[in-house]
């Protein structure tokens, strides 16, 4: 329990620093959102009135305090571009982003770990070379490019999946049909990472003395692999899955754009294009929370798998 509390206490200042940096950087960028919202026809009085309405006429420290107060109350405020409550948009967007990231990770783990094991156990044979080549390609492909390729093949040529949108979250079939290709895009990149890490981790463990001892005791190869190799090799894989999942969050932004999914990434790009300060702050805070929570979960899972971590050894 102490371990969990310690991890949570470390996460809070991290989150605070990230949202503060986001707040400052967004305001340092040039461009007046009031002018942008009203356009060239607006009178000076109209621009000033809107600046007041948006709370942009007060000192930046006061804007920051208001922002923090709202954040602590779970209130992200309203979009300065259209006055819509940001929380409403986030409620719509977060499920689309979470399901994409989660499914991408699941794809990556389900495909990457078996593939890593398979290639490691066939070191320097054809499957190993193929696995390594696949992994290299996966690591080299930008997510948006891979997404476009998959769309071209599976949606345009084979007509297996739809192209547009994120589907209806309340309609399982519709939702899954829209989810498969974007999640598979992220999953393939994740698979490439995990395959490489799993393979090298297993190869390292295979050279350990206790594996040699197990084999010399006459244990069957399957028992050696499952009981002695996998158990130890998968420990570093667990923590690296956490790290790569954070990379995947970044990749998910471009995937949401390519597949026009109404997620947080698309929300962020729209806010950036239109200098929507308040929405951008909220989105950065959400992404920072994703990263912090993922880190926290990784630490906790790692602690469960390897109790030595919890004991601080």
């Amino acid at each position: 329990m102490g371990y969990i509390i310690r991890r949570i206490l470390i996460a809070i200042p991290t989150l605070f620093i990230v949202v503060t940096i986001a707040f400052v950087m967004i305001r340092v960028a040039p461009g007046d959102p009031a002018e942008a919202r009203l356009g060239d026809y607006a009178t000076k009085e109209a621009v000033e009135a809107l600046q007041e309405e948006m709370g942009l006429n007060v000192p930046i420290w006061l804007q920051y305090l208001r922002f923090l107060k709202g954040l602590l109350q779970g209130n992200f405020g309203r979009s300065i571009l259209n006055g819509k409550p940001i929380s409403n948009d986030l409620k719509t967007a977060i499920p689309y982003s979470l399901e994409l990231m989660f499914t991408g990770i699941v794809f990556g783990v389900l495909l990457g770990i078996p593939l890593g094991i398979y290639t490691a156990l066939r070191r320097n044979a054809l499957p190993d070379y193929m696995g390594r080549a696949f992994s290299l390609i996966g690591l080299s492909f930008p997510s948006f490019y891979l997404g476009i390729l998959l769309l071209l093949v599976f949606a345009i040529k084979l007509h297996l999946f739809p192209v547009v949108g994120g589907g209806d979250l309340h309609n399982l079939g519709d939702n899954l049909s829209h989810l498969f290709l974007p999640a598979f895009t992220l999953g393939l990149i994740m698979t490439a990472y995990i395959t490489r890490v799993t393979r090298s981790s297993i190869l390292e463990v295979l050279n350990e003395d206790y594996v040699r001892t197990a084999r010399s005791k006459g244990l069957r190869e399957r028992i050696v692999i499952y009981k002695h190799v996998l158990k130890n090799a998968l420990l570093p894989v667990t923590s690296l899955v956490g790290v790569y999942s954070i990379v995947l969050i970044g990749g998910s932004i471009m995937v949401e754009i390519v597949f026009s999914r109404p997620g947080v990434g698309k929300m962020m790009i729209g806010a950036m294009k239109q200098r929507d300060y308040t929405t951008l702050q909220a989105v950065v805070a959400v992404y920072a929370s994703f990263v912090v929570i993922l880190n926290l979960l990784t630490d906790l899972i790692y602690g469960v798998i390897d109790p030595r971590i919890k004991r601080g050894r």
Partner: protein
Amino acid sequence: MLRVSKLTLFVGILVVMMFGLIAQPVLGKDQVLKIALDAADLNVIHPHFANNTQDRAVVHLIFNGLVRYKTGDISEFEPDLAKSWEVSKDGTVWTFHLRHGVMVHPWNGHPGYELTSEDVVYSLRGSADPAQSAWSGEYAGMTFKAVDRYTVKITLEKPVSPSLFLPKVADYAGGLITPKKAAEDLGEDFRIHPVGTGPFIFKKYTPMSKVVVVRNEKYFRGAPKLAGVEVLYMPDMSSRKFGLQSKELDVIEGPPSQPWVEEMKALPGVKVDVFGPGEGAVLHFNMTKKPFDDIRVRRATCYALTRDEVVTTIGKDVADPMYSMVPPVLAGGLTREELVERGQQDGKDYLYATDRKKAKELLAKAGFPDGFSTDIYMSERGEYLLPIQNVVAQLGRCGIDVKLHIVDHATYHHNMRADMNSIDLYNCWRPTADVFLTHFYLSDSGVVTGESPVTNFSHIGQVDANGDGTIDSVDDLIKAARKELDAAKQAELWKEAQLKAQDWAVSYATHIKKFTFARRDYVDWGYELRSTLILSPQINELTTISK
């Protein structure tokens, strides 16, 4: 080990089957038109604040004006909510007679009601209020009165010509009529739940995804043939193209790019619409910055350029050369032929046909025999970058070395308005010659230093433009044109203002960039699409899908 490989195979097949079997093909309903725009989300769909393409595309489905631009052709006005109108002899009182039986859309359980003069007056007063409208300046000095249930009287402080007045009450921006009861009932929510009288009724907005509207069975021009329209927000060009190919989308917005037009034309079952009015691109020379304070340098810069080369760079299908500040499609615009003819009459060169020898001579006379170098900040967007790169290359041939600093679009806007550039390239459309000239040539509109800064980047009217030691301005011509009621005389004043500015070489129009959309060939707009102020195709009661 064999089991491991089997496990991989099994898991893979299982996952694909899970998605593949449960997945259902998503087929659009046949009579719902799906149009995808190049935007991540809508901004606001209150007509008096909607000022970009993604918002206007929705607003136009829902609202009407007292009059309207002829569908597909902005050169004419025709009745809309008003069946007729007249103007007093002194040009200060406009009286509009409303159609009977125009029904306001139902909203939130309210069944809707008949639109009357009370709604029109409420809406126009809102348009004139800076707190309720982005276009309040356009309605300054107007008073609105409901004479009876179907008659609205608008009184102006000063008379203006029909070509300047009618756009204010047309189906564009502040002229779109917001029904009183619905606007008051919905309050702030009206911005994202619009209620109007147009061919389609707002149904649903899904953030970052789409707006859905459905057929208005009680539309006064007759129920639309489409069951509804879905306006989707898709910022990725490839996704829009794939959506069109897979027929999940019926219409998509394209970039103003020749290769894109050609790519779309090559797709089976796809048609391309390239339409106006387009956005005029003009180079503005900042006369407060050296060496552009010297008329010889500005003229040399003009002579160093070839419009055709800029147009070829952008693409012959998507751009046309433009020769002065106001595009020739508008009253007061100048064509190439007019500039040549007027130049011959006045013994001046208004056209600045390419003459690099002359450009170098002028530079030498101005003290720059080896040319000079200058820095400009430019937007990263293709519609700016492509032409400016060509301009820079052309100027380089005459020794004018322009160092281009590429910045994001918002920074570019900020830097221009902070008067940081020596040359500004600005793409835009304005509905009348008066707005064009007021924004770009009126002294009050000078960026930073003007009384009410807009986009006068050259500072014409604030500085000595022709080198005679006095301040040169076209303010009097712009203001006189505004008061002129005779259309021909008014157009002549606008042309005079531009000819003076051309003579002083304060700016150099390069091209007009058109708008590009692709559609499946089963979509019929129901009218000829030549130009539209909403910058995307108008979808109305005549539009059909015949799959």
